[in-house]
């Protein structure tokens, strides 16, 4: 447990609490969570991006996630502490770094994992988020506009670098962190 905590930078109490949450979610009691376990969370079912976020917990091809994977994913959302900002850059980048937070969000868009958000991928997410009020046509123009705004190399897709660039003014450290478990 201690070694995990050091890589994930989660404190002991955080891990303890996460573990209790993990077990309470694990209805099959087999030490892993399936997609169904996640989908049982009522609020998640109505979250427009719920499915994408659930998917983010599962590595490719897997349909189970153990506690370690569970923690790994959630560690992205740990706020960046003051003392970490000045930490040496030599060690492995912590999961909750700005870049990793952004990459987590980026992967929600990037379904085919080609490190690019294509127009279709963007459209899908858009469609999830805006509800029925807006027509496909309008969504299409929003997507085009979004890509055009971010696209720098002219490939009509948003690469991760472009994604980072376009969000450089956004306080990602704050907006992708939750104050869970103090």
């Amino acid at each position, binding site marked *: 447990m201690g070694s995990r905590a050091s890589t994930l930078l989660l404190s002991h109490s955080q891990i303890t609490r996460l573990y209790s949450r993990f077990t309470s979610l694990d209805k099959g009691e087999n030490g892993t969570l399936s997609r169904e376990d996640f989908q049982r969370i009522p609020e998640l079912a109505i979250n427009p991006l719920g499915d994408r976020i659930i998917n983010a917990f599962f590595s490719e091809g897997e349909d189970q996630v153990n506690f370690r994977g569970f923690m790994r994913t959630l560690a992205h959302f740990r706020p960046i502490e003051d003392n970490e900002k000045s930490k040496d850059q030599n060690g492995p980048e912590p999961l909750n770094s700005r870049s990793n937070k952004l990459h987590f969000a980026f992967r929600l868009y990037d379904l085919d994992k080609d490190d690019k958000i294509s127009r279709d991928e963007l459209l899908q997410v858009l469609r999830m988020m805006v509800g029925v009020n807006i027509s496909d046509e309008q969504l299409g123009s929003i997507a085009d506009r*979004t890509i055009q705004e971010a696209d720098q190399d002219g490939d009509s897709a948003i690469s991760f670098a472009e994604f980072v660039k376009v969000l450089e003014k956004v306080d990602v450290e704050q907006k992708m962190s939750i104050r869970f478990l103090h």
Partner: protein
Amino acid sequence: MALDKEGSETEQGPPAALRVPPGPSVRPGGFCRAGAAWRGVGERGSWQCSLSLQKGAACVAVLLQTPALCSRGWEMVSQPAQLPSEPGPPTGAAFCRLPWGKRGSAGRAGPDPIFHLSRKVTSVVPESCLLILLGLGLGGIVLAVAKKAEYQLEPNMFFLFLLPPIVLDSGYFMPSRLFFDNIGSILTYAVVGTLWNSFATGMALWGLHQAGLMDPGVKAELMDFLLFGSLISAVDPVAVLAVFEEVHVNETLFIIVFGESLLNDAVTVVLYKVFNSFVELGPAHIHAMDYVKGVVSFFLVSLGGTAVGLLFAFLLALITRFTKRVRIIEPLFVFLLAYVAYLAAEMVSLSSILAVTFCGICCKKYVEANISQKSRTTVKYTMKTLASSSETIIFMFLGISAVDTSKWAWDTTLVLGTLLFILLFRAVGVVLQTYVLNHFRLIPLDRIDQVVMSYGGLRGAVAFALVILLDGAKVKAKDYFVATTIVVVFFTVIVQGLTIKPLVTWLKVKRSDHHKPTLNEELHEHAFDHILAAVEDIVGHHGYHYWRDKWEQFDKKYLSQLLMRKSAYRLRDEIWDVYYKLNIRASWLEGTRGGPLALPSMPSRTSMSESSVTNLLRESGSGACLDLQVIDTVRSRRDKEDAVMHHVLRGSLYKPRRRYKASYSRHFISPDKQERQDKEVFRQNMKRRLETFKSTKHNVCSSKSKARLKEKGRKKSAAPFSNHPLQYLAAAPVLVMVSSDEEESNSSETEREDDEGIVFIARATDEVLQGKKTPGSLDVCPSPCIIPPSPTLAEKELPWKGDQADLAVYVSSETTKIVPVDMQKAWNQSISSLESIASPPGIETGAQHKRFTCPVLEEQPQSASQAMPEQSSCFQFPSHVSKSSRSHSDSSPDGIEQQELQPLMAAEEPSRVVSSAEPRWLIQFNRASHL
């Protein structure tokens, strides 16, 4: 065959547009001239005068509009650095400081207009300081002349009239997301901080008194000092705003200090009242119960005030939902109900500031969605103006009141002690609270933030008004307290106000970074919110995002349904809003920057032309019912988009002039209102129709809904004019305006061209349309040589999206559009009369009118085939038009011209419409020969 012809026409459209003389030159020219307008603003003073002298009222409207246009333009234009037509420095200086320019997190303006004549002075000295000094000077003059101080800041006047506008303004324009993001910290500082400051200051002063350091003339007990502490320790919203607006610290810091200053009112009020009553009772008569009562009353006052505010916010939102027919008084409701909330809270001794603040914060979302664009503008400007005026008056009166030495009683120890203690205890309080809060805050407040927060604790007019309110008979040391308060207020506002800017610069405090959200930011931040809410769910931690998510669900499910108009509710989507704003901003830049606007619609280009081709195929083959249905869905969406675009654009461009007109000539309001209703009806109908089309796949349903819509549209639009457009035109008083204005417009046209870039484009499109019409009808096929990428539909329909619109594509793609004819009429009439009412220049009116009618009208021929039978029974269409559209329904181009020309001329020259069909053809040919 038809397909081929259609296709070739589609391709040949753009060159036609290019070959039309005014076409290619006008559009860039329009933008250039728009740019020139910015440059020209510097010289506005000169030609404004001559202009207004010449043209009288109509041109005054133009003038009124100019600043708004320019400030808007400046905002938009200033985004990219590489702007060719950079506005001159005076323009920027003058207009980016206009009260409605977005400055500061709360977007509020200080009393700029007075002192911003000199940038140098105000860049160093806050206006509040200058105003106080001015007040001192004025007061001194009055004192010297009248030998006694005549004027004073009356507490009643202050609390009843001067404070509410400021608080309402700050509440209404409060960045609510930011506010609620930090609500925990704000509340802590407001409640705990203020309590701590009051007690600590009061106790320490009492200690000084007990130690015998004070003048024996200061006859005060512990309770007196606590009372004084309570009134002197509250951070003042007016002063904080006035100073922090100019400092531009980052939003979080601003909202914490400012939010604290607003919310600590409840604490201040309670403490003040409790201690006041204690002083009046005398220490001997205070029982333990009274302390308990004091604590209870705090909750009562704060929560009660908030509840009153929420109640009135709810009422206000509900009322504005039903003001569709009384648009004129919409702004009145906003001010009235907010003020009633203030008075109601004040009357029952609840926290009135809290009431107005929360009323403003909570009603804004619904009110803004419900009221019309004009009302929104009115509310915004009026609120800003009122708040700025109040602020100016308050600070001036502070200065004036200070010279009244009869109320002064100086005690150096008291003054210095108070100054020291409020600074010290504020700093201590902030540090202690921040230490605790940082354990809970996501982004901890660092040391620099704490310094600014401590130093930014300005005292102001509230403290002064409260100390004046003290009863001199009961509070023996009132005069000392008054003097001390004045010194403290002056010290904080002047000394701290002067030094906080250098301090912030010196400490390198994170400044606010104001940029309009890009689409990406908006989009991804939405995604972040969802992600965080989901992660909180997964972790099982019911944190902030959980509750925010819950609230939004609740709001979406119940509140918005209840408090928003259906139309507003449907259209509301933040991403979409941002998209619109960006597009409109881009449209300003298009001329200078190679048109980013054209790009977004590029991919849809192919699909649209495809659909139009297939549509044509199917239409010519079958009875066109099913296919119409399919493509109509596409078209109507696009059309809705266009309609919204129109509204947004028109709303943002012409509103000042219209607003002026509305208030200028009262008798024009009623037709204006009627037309607005018609337009509203039309818009709603379009939306409803869209919904129906989305949900159903059968033509039957659509025609049914169409019929229903038609019914409604007719019912609502029937009142002031009969169904026949000619009668309407003859009857409408508007037209007199048009013709009279037309003469004026000739002379003033050049100036106006400089003024309005967008209008120019509109006309360009219009001319291009006319130009292309002719080749189409004469079957002159334009040579297909110069074909830029074929324009998107948007380019064709939206004037600002491209002027190479061509008729051929209209026909192919637009034929599928079903627009009930009477709805069109309502639309046209409303637009034309609206425009003619609103815009003094007659020629422009015509152009705009044409521009707006075009998208709708081109859909006519198709609907003629389908909707005509229905129409003939229920609605009398001008005979020549219906005839022509019927006869030409198979050869659509001619039909379109007929349809299109009709309203064009109706707007331009009412007399010609009266004449038969031949003159119209003549006109058309005339136009052709022009080109």
